[in-house]
């Protein structure tokens, strides 16, 4: 999996190269391996310390992963906790050939699938109610605006490019939420969390070819959604 960066640069197009150092969650794969080893094989004190460190490292990527999937703060928090509980209880099951990112997001995917099943049983329809949408939209807006609750006031002193970027982020967040579950999962893993196609495939338990095709369709759908938002 390579890309000809020099050709891309010469072409004037900005190609994004994704590799181990580029992706958000894989901060330090070797450090992760040491922590997992300590978690599994260390003394109780070492194991505790490693678990604490792993939670510190991974809570933000996992929480934001769930936030993009479930569109709800409390649920994202609950699912993040569940990933760590499963990691701890199944620490002996970790397969060293998989990166910790893959392993954690695969657990995350399982938690999310369980959550969807439960929700679908409870509410036949997974459509977001008006309040849920509005609350999250506000939450999203606040996050984008750095916690400023008054979006319009904050815009007054900002350059147009910055406003445009924030608007795009906000629109994209909404558009991602409108994707189907399967497309949203792949897009969030690959484009937002920065996992490679192979890692995304392993985490989502689908073939690499399916990742490629779902990414293509997800981006296509997002382009359509965003252009419609622009029209509005």
């Amino acid at each position, binding site marked *: 999996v390579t*890309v000809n960066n020099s050709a891309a640069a010469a072409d004037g197009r*900005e190609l*994004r190269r994704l590799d181990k150092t580029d992706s958000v969650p894989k901060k330090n794969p070797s450090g992760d391996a040491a922590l997992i080893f300590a978690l599994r094989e260390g003394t109780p004190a070492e194991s505790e310390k490693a678990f604490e460190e792993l939670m510190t490292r991974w*809570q933000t990527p996992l929480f934001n992963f769930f936030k993009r999937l479930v569109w709800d703060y409390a649920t994202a*928090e609950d699912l993040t906790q569940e990933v760590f*509980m*499963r990691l701890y209880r199944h620490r002996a099951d970790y397969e060293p050939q998989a990166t910790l990112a893959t392993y954690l997001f695969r657990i995350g995917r399982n938690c999310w699938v369980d959550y969807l099943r439960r929700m679908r049983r409870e509410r036949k329809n997974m459509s977001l109610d008006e309040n849920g949408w509005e609350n999250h939209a506000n939450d999203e807006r606040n*996050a984008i605006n750095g916690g400023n609750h008054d979006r319009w006031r904050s815009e007054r002193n900002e350059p147009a490019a910055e406003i445009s970027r924030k608007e*795009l982020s906000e629109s*994209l967040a909404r558009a991602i939420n409108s994707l189907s579950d399967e497309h949203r999962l792949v897009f969030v893993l690959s484009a937002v969390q920065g996992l490679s196609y192979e890692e995304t495939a392993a985490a989502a338990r689908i073939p690499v070819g399916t990742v490629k095709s779902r990414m293509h369709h997800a981006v296509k759908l997002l382009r359509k959604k965003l252009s419609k938002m622009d029209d509005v």
Partner: protein
Amino acid sequence: MTFDVKETGKMNCLDFNDDLTAYAQGYLAEERTVAVKNHLDACANCRAELAEINTILESAKTLPETATPSDLRDKVRQRLVAGEPISALKPTILPSKHKHRSHSRYWLSAAAVVLLAVFLTTFIQTGPGAKKNNKEVLAMQLWKERSVAPSWRGSLNKLGAKLEAPDFKDLKELYLAPHAADRPHETCIYAFAEEDIQRLRKKARKPEDKAKVEKMLSSAKKVTIEDGGIFLPEKLAGLCFHSDFAHKRRLAVLKLEGRWEIWDASTLDNYLRTEPNLIPVDNRDADMK
């Protein structure tokens, strides 16, 4: 039949369109990357499309992250210490493909889980039609039945070691007694709590049953659940392990990661329901031989 230039151009675009996202992300094979690049050099439409794709991908990469709740780690610890099951999530139904795991991988990765929770008078039957060559399916079936009639009978032949008790809630002491002395081939142990003694006496109506119960009670040993486990008296080590608690208090003995553990059954129930990698396995036949 011939295509005019415009039509041919469209065909070319369609050929490359599916690859643009992977190209933008850098995940196309080298040969294909060159082909797409060559097409892009000649096609303004696809260049514009690629620019849009890049905008979306870049924007996705820089979506703002929300800070995690400050007490998230504390909550995880609290839930683990409390032995809390994984939230209120419903059972994960194993897809059929998971049933094709090799047994060696299964034993290594998921560990063997044996569930035992038995009432005095009712033992579940597996049924003559049960497929013994497919233990996973059999176990799931038993598990399903158990939810209807929460009765299990199991066996344990590796006593002597400490049984871990991750979550016994308010149960601090257990009575353990050899049972079925009239069936020497099957040395059983009954486990019950103090509050169950009166119930056991009450249940035995026939004189011979009363005598049997009294004999069992007189030989019972009280063991304390301390430091998260129980040391079973060597004398009681045997093939079978039964529990006989009042309803709502069921005992589950399981082998988890190579270690025998004794759990409050309702805790285990929830745990198994939410853990896709754990499959309850009924290996009574193997243990009872």
